[in-house]
């Protein structure tokens, strides 16, 4: 009897999980579990994509992290990354080190650095929306500012 109940519960659970929104693209659905490695995005027109690429390359050279997403907006640049699991104790230090290095390297940019999964996920979602063309540059920049605001709430 108990087994039957258990199996029914499993079936219902499987049914429910398969129904969760299908319109979401593939990458953002698993962004927290696997390496996504999204391309850097620029919400500020087309200029500056070279620099965004450079920033991403620079950040990726840190051995402690494994997935980097860069967004360049009008007001600044957002760098989101995932820290390797055993390095998570040093998250504060890594963040300080990275901010310093980036500011030394690109003194004109205004950087926001975050290792939060939520920020990373939102950047991947924004990336997907921009690539599918379902969002205009202006909307994207607005969303970018919202994400930056989210990081400021954490401090």
């Amino acid at each position: 009897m108990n087994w039957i109940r258990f199996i029914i519960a499993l079936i219902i659970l499987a049914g429910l999980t398969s129904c969760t929104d299908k319109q979401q693209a593939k990458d953002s659905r698993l962004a927290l579990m696997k390496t996504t490695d999204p391309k850097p995005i620029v919400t500020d027109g087309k200029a500056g994509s070279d620099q965004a690429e450079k920033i991403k390359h620079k950040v990726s050279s840190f051995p402690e992290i494994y997935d980097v997403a860069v967004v360049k907006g009008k007001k600044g640049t957002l760098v989101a990354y995932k820290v390797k699991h055993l390095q998570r104790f040093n998250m504060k230090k890594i963040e300080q080190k990275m901010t310093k290095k980036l500011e030394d390297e690109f003194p004109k940019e205004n950087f926001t650095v975050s290792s939060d999964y939520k920020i990373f996920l939102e950047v991947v979602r924004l990336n997907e929306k921009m690539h599918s063309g379902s969002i205009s540059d202006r909307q994207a920049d607005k969303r970018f500012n919202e994400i930056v605001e989210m990081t400021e709430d954490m401090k």
Partner: protein
Amino acid sequence: MANKQNMTHEQQQYQQLQQKHEKKRPVLKNCIKAFFIGGLICTVGQAISYFYIYFFNFTEQSVGNPTVATMVFLSMLLTGFGVYDRLGQFAGAGSAVPVTGFGNAVISAAIEHRTEGFVLGVGGNMFKLAGSVLLFGVFAAFVVALIKTLLVIWGVL
């Protein structure tokens, strides 16, 4: 237990007999059970916090609050249905140490004293065990925050 010198001969004999027949506690087995069930509960917690990150506007830092609330609520429901008690029988500390144990402590005390009325029974005894969790939790948090504040003021951190 009484001192061995104070016991009569018969009592000592009985003690020996009792020790011979007493079942050994399977400490290692209990630890393993507690480890896995505790880990399972924490996995559920992790899934819930990812759920909040994905579908709501919570960051990794702020997601702790709704996750804890959900876990406590779930364990309260399970206690009410009598499921959590069985889990507790099986896993022991593995089910008591995560926050879900807190929900269990609140609701099991409330159920136990239901017959004594709503005010003096349920209301008065609900936090019998959970109250000490709150008291020492808040006090420990206060002490840690105090130490951290002092360290920041002195420039150590």
